[in-house]
């Protein structure tokens, strides 16, 4: 077979034969092979643990971001009912960024779970094969002459070697994935460290560098739309809270349609 299978088979066979080439004295090789196999199994376990750690880290970030979304939404509502449209807009822009990050994280957590499952399945198969090899090893030692044993060992070790190459591949793919995710997770952490998801009311009125960057990041129409909706829901302009702050003078450039929308019974 020439296609994908051909090339892939060559790769695996090369790896397995490298493993088997270490065979010199059959009896010695048997024990040595087994010992090596058990060692490799430990590496696989460590690999799985790394994937789990990476996943937990992403899940923790998910929790933080979810809290930020709720907080920023609340702040946007407070700002709208207080007539502070600029502040509301800032909060919504940040919420928008947090939500986008959340979606990305969610996909990645799912992918990692998939990788973890594959690794666990592979590890189970490897464990079963190593155990079978251990049994066969004793039979070979007891029953076969050196020449025959050589053949038997090769056959038995092929199965284990192939599974090992396969677990190695699964592990490599998981590591590649976690590295991509780590980069993304670091990016989110940087946003957090820069105060992106912090309390917007604590920032003061001036537009800072973060705000300008966020405006570029968040899709403006989505923010406009949500702001308009929020104003509709809060019935802005009607009998809002008594402690209402005067709307800033430049508030006139908001979308015209916003106030026209009747309250959709959203906010209780």
């Amino acid at each position, binding site marked *: *077979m*020439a*296609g*994908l*299978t051909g*090339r*892939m*088979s060559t*790769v*695996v*066979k090369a*790896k*397995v034969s*490298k*493993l088997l080439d270490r065979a010199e004295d059959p009896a010695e090789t048997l024990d040595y092979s087994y010992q090596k196999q058990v060692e*490799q199994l430990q*590496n*696989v376990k460590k690999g799985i643990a790394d994937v789990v750690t990476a996943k937990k880290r992403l899940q923790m970030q998910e929790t933080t971001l979810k809290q930020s979304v709720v907080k920023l939404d609340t702040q946007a509502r407070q700002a709208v009912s207080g007539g502070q449209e600029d502040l509301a807009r800032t909060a919504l822009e940040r919420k928008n960024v947090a939500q986008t990050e959340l979606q990305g994280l969610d996909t990645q957590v799912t992918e990692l779970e*998939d990788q973890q499952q*594959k690794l666990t*399945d*592979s590890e*189970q*198969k490897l464990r*079963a*094969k190593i*155990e*079978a*090899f251990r049994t*066969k090893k004793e039979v070979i030692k007891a029953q076969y002459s050196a020449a025959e044993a050589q053949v038997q060992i090769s*056959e*038995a070790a*092929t*199965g*284990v*070697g*192939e599974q*090992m*190459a*396969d*677990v*190695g*591949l*699964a*592990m*490599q*793919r998981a590591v590649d994935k976690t590295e991509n995710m780590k980069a993304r997770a670091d990016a989110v952490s940087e946003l957090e460290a820069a105060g992106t998801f912090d309390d917007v009311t604590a920032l003061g009125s001036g537009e800072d560098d973060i705000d300008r960057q966020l405006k570029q990041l968040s899709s403006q129409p989505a923010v406009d739309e949500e702001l308009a909706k929020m104003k509709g829901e809060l019935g802005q302009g009607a009998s809002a809270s008594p402690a209402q702050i005067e709307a800033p003078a430049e508030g006139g450039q908001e979308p015209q349609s916003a106030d026209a929308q009747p309250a959709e019974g959203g906010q209780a």
Partner: protein
Amino acid sequence: MIVRVSTEGQYELKGEALERLNELDDTCQVAVEAGDSERFHACYEKLLKLIRDEGSELEDDDLRGSDLTLPPPDITLEEAQSEFSGHGLIPD
């Protein structure tokens, strides 16, 4: 014939299924060469389905080696295009 789907497992396939596997393998290869990601994934899905449906999965403690090895199910077109090399536990 024993076929391994990388990161998944080994299956034993016989007779007519092998011919269809061979045909699908060629079709996938053509899609890879054409750089057609959608066609490649559709084809590879079909190929994997054939193996899973028609093949019988080997027991975990079966020590037989495979006659054929397929790339992992989540292979990308780019990976299929580049000489596919799986890194592994076995040092190079």
